[in-house]
């Protein structure tokens, strides 16, 4: 009997050791709040997400909230996120991120009564469509070599590259002349815009995480970005020729503003696979100018602060599901979106066959 127990214990130990040599064990045992600021060495992470934002409010220059639905210009923003992260070393991570966004903004409908008839002579609709890829972000995260797990610091330099052209496509205006017995001419001014900045920019950032108790973490990050040089784009002017619109493009120069953003996040690990978080985000863009009107005019400073509530579920050791909602708190010269974000993160160690059990023990402990 004693021999049997001894052999059985050896068998169990062998199984346990075998499991520990699997790279996935690192991710399986690691709770959300225990994750270091950089990925583990050899860890590849695919991130994709979708965010829908209902834009029914806007903050004006005096920080007053304007109801866009009442003004007839409420809109919906659809945004798709793609990201790829790789742990080069245990303290060095490389990241690539690029996003796609789409939004249509319809403006107040304009009826013009030239002849004082019951029916308007002109029915004019203005419509602005924003779509395209944002500038690609590429950067690294360097974690400072501290011996404690209670606190971590990291630096995150990177740069933005406009991979796609920032020149908007030609407008798609249309005009419908009245048929017999009708008096109204319908005109739709449909202007196209890009969503990217179209500028090379540098970003420097710093982040820190503090784990004061076992199930709680406080995370903060601060980023500052600025353009490398001024950029060039085009604007379109149109002229009606018969029933067709003719378009001409006029080049103009602009300089994007400097952006400061920070985030503070309080996370609670309710159970090993479920984490709830409350965040505060602030973003401010200032300086910069544009010659789109023909004159060089400085950009208005804009600010936005958001409250974010969400959770992460570790569905499997490799698959993590994140969801949160953003609620606008205050702002200046900025749209105020109410957003729902749903993200999926998939993690694997594609190039590392085995890790030494000592390395795993160090990571877990």
């Amino acid at each position, binding site marked *: 009997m004693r021999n049997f127990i001894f052999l059985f214990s050896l068998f169990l130990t062998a199984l346990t050791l075998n499991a520990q040599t699997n790279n996935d064990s690192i991710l399986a045992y690691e709770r959300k709040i225990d994750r270091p600021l950089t990925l583990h060495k050899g860890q590849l992470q695919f991130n994709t997400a*979708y965010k*829908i934002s*209902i834009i*029914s409010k806007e903050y004006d220059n005096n920080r007053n909230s304007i109801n866009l*639905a*009442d*003004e*007839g*210009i*409420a*809109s*919906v923003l659809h945004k798709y996120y793609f990201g790829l992260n790789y742990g080069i070393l245990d303290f060095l991570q490389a990241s690539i991120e690029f996003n796609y966004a789409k939004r*249509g903004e*319809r*403006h*107040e*409908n*304009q*009826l*013009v*009564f*030239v002849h*004082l008839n019951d029916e*308007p002579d002109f029915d004019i*609709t203005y*419509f602005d*469509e924003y779509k395209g890829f944002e500038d690609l972000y590429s950067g690294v995260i360097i974690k400072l070599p501290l011996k404690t797990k209670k606190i971590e610091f990291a630096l995150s330099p990177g740069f933005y590259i406009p991979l796609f052209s920032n020149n908007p496509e030609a407008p798609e205006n249309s005009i419908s002349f009245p048929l017999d017995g009708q008096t109204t001419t319908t005109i*739709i001014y449909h202007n196209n815009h890009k969503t990217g900045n179209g500028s090379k920019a540098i970003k420097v950032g710093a982040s820190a995480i503090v784990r004061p108790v076992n199930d709680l973490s406080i995370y903060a990050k601060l980023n500052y970005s600025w353009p490398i040089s001024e950029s060039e784009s085009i604007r379109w002017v149109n002229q009606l020729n018969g029933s067709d619109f003719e378009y001409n493009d006029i080049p103009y120069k602009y300089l994007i503003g400097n952006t400061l953003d920070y985030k503070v996040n309080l996370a609670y690990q309710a159970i090993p696979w479920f984490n709830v978080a409350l965040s505060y985000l602030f973003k401010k863009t200032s300086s910069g100018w544009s010659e789109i009107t023909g004159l060089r005019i400085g950009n208005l400073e804009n600010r936005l602060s958001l409250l974010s509530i969400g959770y992460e*579920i570790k*569905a*499997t050791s490799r*698959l993590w*599901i994140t*969801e949160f909602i953003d609620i606008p708190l205050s702002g200046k010269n900025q749209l105020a979106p109410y957003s*729902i974000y*749903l993200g999926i993160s998939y993690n694997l160690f594609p190039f590392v066959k085995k890790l030494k059990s000592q390395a795993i023990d160090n990571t877990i402990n």
Partner: protein
Amino acid sequence: MKKTIISLVLIILANIAYSQEEDKLLVSEIKQSTVITQPATLNKGFFLVGASFMHIMADKMFSDKGKKDYAVQNLSLRNSAAYLSFHFGLTNRIELAFDLPYTIASISKSIISEIPLLDTAVTTKFKLKGKGIGDIEFGISYQLIEGSKTKPSLVSKLSAVFPTGEKNPTNIKGLWEYDYPTGRGETALRLELIYRKISYPYSYSFHSLFKYSFGGEKVMAPYEDPISFRSGNYYEVGGNFDFLLNDWIAVQNNLGFLYKNADKYNGETAQIPVTQMAIFYYPNINFQFKKFRLAQGVCIYLFGKTIPGDPQYQIDLQYIF
């Protein structure tokens, strides 16, 4: 010989008994079944209480030619509905259901009218808001073919919708400012057939649905007399492919096709009859926390005609006891 037969019978009985035992689950385990493994209808004596919330902001529309584009002018339409559901397993094959909807709708539009001769410009705001109880629904589901872990099930569900929600515009302050009705104003019957097969950790199902509305009388716009109307017949077919990511997270994928005949007013279809059709994809992710279930999904219209083209967000919370 007699001993052999008795032994054989005993062995067979033992095997049957063993098989029966294998399929048995504790009551608490059944109540914690996921959407993949749950019975086709609630078991006898089980209750399900659920709350659902859906939201859509109609920014884009599919035209009658099937082209998806932003809605003309600046009409903004937001519609939210919250449902409270109560389901009860009368027997292992019969389930009763009651749905109580609460609707919140908002339609807004803004127009500037300019009269150059008089040097005048007037802004007109078009604001319709409606909130209140919608049309309640009673349903009964019956397992025509009783399913199990290995055998497929076929369920027929018959539901009746009663016009308990407000059907007419109320609180009228003007032609363009009033409380939007929260009910359809007509009784309707809905018949649904669902075939489902479980192959753990997967399940797949096919469904078909037909809804017939009996029509009624209501005021279509402020200051107008009520007219008779009847909503067009509604047809839907589709299929589900669902799978478990782990023991408590399921992903559901529903691909469907819907078609709705044009509504009739005073016995006639409108001058430009609006028939609606769409192919939609509704993925959702379903979390099972013991007896609680939380599902979230987005219904995406892939193709359609005269139907809103924006995704519809839905969240469901259920508790089985």
